[in-house]
């Protein structure tokens, strides 16, 4: 009796692992190991200069009750830190609002780009440009446009009669978050539009023709036919963008540094890691952010039962 697995498949399996090895080692060193260390640091008293001798301190960085004596005491640690909870709220607020608008605008742009009209290629290229501009550059560009004294945005809005006084978009706590969201929406809507457009282009054209022959009004065709068909594409795009929005850092760091109004989890973590020399505490914040994103990712993968093997049915 021959072996059930031939020399060929054994050779192929062996070379599979061999060619995968460099990638796996790299991913281990840049991702798995650092992640493990971050989590470890969050349970220690590590500081920037003393990483190697960090001592295990339990969950002190997360939560600790310190007794002052006489029944008196107070909770310390990340979970008792109002600034942390504020940044959690900021992050969620930012993610929900930005992604909602990006989806809406993305859908509109995708629907426009899905039409046949002269100059469509050029319009698509133009739409892509905000995506290609580095985040830092977009933040700076908008910071200048939103300048309270010399910004063109105030000038425009005043000419249009939308505002009577110049607004300090980035400096005022009331508008700082709006400013950040405007930049993010402007920059990432193209990505959304492209993903939705890809979904739209997979809808067979004859469905529209059939609907037209049946005399279905355009809006109802969209709501009853197009939307359900592209919903999966939209969902995937929304999940990807949400994961991205939850780790937002660059825009805020450049546009509105050091304000409670826009500090997100990533900004909070980095501040503690490198600016306040609270390395362990910052690591704890990083770990929590990772957990939030991991939970969402896992839920998403479970919910959609992604076809990872790419099996063709």
């Amino acid at each position, binding site marked *: 009796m021959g072996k059930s697995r031939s020399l060929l498949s054994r050779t192929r399996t062996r070379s599979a692992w061999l060619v995968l090895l460099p990638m796996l080692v790299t991913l281990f060193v840049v991702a798995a190991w650092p992640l493990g260390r971050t989590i470890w640091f969050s349970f220690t008293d590590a500081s920037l200069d003393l990483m190697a001798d960090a001592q295990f301190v339990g969950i002190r960085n997360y939560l600790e009750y310190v007794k002052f004596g006489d029944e008196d005491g107070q909770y310390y640690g990340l979970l008792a830190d109002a600034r942390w909870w504020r940044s959690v709220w900021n992050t969620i607020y930012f993610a929900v609002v930005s992604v909602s608008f990006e989806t809406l605008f993305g859908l509109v742009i995708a629907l426009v780009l899905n039409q046949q009209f002269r100059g469509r290629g050029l319009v698509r290229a133009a739409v892509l440009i905000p995506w290609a501009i*580095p985040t830092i550059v977009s933040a700076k560009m908008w910071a200048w446009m939103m300048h309270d004294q010399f910004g063109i945005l105030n000038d425009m809005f005043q000419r249009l009669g939308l505002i009577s006084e110049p607004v300090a978009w980035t400096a005022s706590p009331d508008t700082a978050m709006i400013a950040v969201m405007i930049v993010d929406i402007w920059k990432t809507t193209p990505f959304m539009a492209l993903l939705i457009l890809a979904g739209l282009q997979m809808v067979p054209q004859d469905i529209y023709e059939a609907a037209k022959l049946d005399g279905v009004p355009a809006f109802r065709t969209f709501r009853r036919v197009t939307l359900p068909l592209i919903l999966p594409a939209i969902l995937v795009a929304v999940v990807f963008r949400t994961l991205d929005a939850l780790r937002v850092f660059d825009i805020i760091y450049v546009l509105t540094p050091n304000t409670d109004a826009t500090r997100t989890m990533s900004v909070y973590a980095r501040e503690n890691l490198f600016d306040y020399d609270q390395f362990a505490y910052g690591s704890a914040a990083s770990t929590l952010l990772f957990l939030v994103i991991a939970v969402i990712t896992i839920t998403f993968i479970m919910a959609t039962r992604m076809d990872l093997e790419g099996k063709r049915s």
Partner: protein
Amino acid sequence: MKTPLWKRLGFYAVVAVIVLQALFPFYYAILTSLEDGQALFDVNYLPAAPDFVNYRTMLTQGVFGRQILNSVFVATVVVIFSLALAVTAAYALSRIQFRGRGLLLLTVLSVSMFPQIAVLSGLFEVIRFFGLFNSLWALVFSYMIFTLPFTVWVLTTFMRNMPVEIEEAAIMDGASSLTIIRRVFLPLMWPAMVTTGLLAFIHAWNEFLFALTFLSTDSQRTVPVAIALISGRSEFEIPWGNIMAASVIVTLPLVALVLVFQRKIVSGLTAGAVKG
């Protein structure tokens, strides 16, 4: 049956708004970069007296030229490394049946969703351990965390769609796995490699958090950090003209890439995301 005029006008109005909002900020950045002195602080919508002094300042004074080279170096090397690692890995993941393949793909995918901040402190330690702090290699190394999963993912999807029989013919011809990758698949993969390479390049070119954290001196920095850190002596002396000139310089190559490779970029972006 012709579309009524008002409908067509409405449609083109929407198109105009879309194009305008997409282009205006960049247009305004160019406009600002060509102004100096008092002209900078007068709001205008059309160029008044274009002047290249900001560009001259950026490119001749200070280390901005050096910083551009840093960015070019980092992004190029990152692309080369990630493509080299990803092509072989993608072959194994798309073409060879072995136990644990699904799990591996899942791992790769989940790494691509890692928040960078979550590995920051651990990575900081690793980079110091290898003595790479304030070295461009620190960025080449750390950027693998986002370019590698992405390139592996896209190339795997691409390779999966190549005809099985070509590979079987090569097996019958006695080619080893490495020969099949090098002689048969690699020459057929150029379109996909260009696409993923471009996206990885843009990603690496734009990265901020790692570059901000792992480099400490001006001459080592890459352009996004350099631009973010340009400042005046006080809030009122921020050299907006210089900042905009620098912004235009680092953005123009990207805009050119987008215009030339529009189709490839779009297909790469959607392959990376939709094919979940």
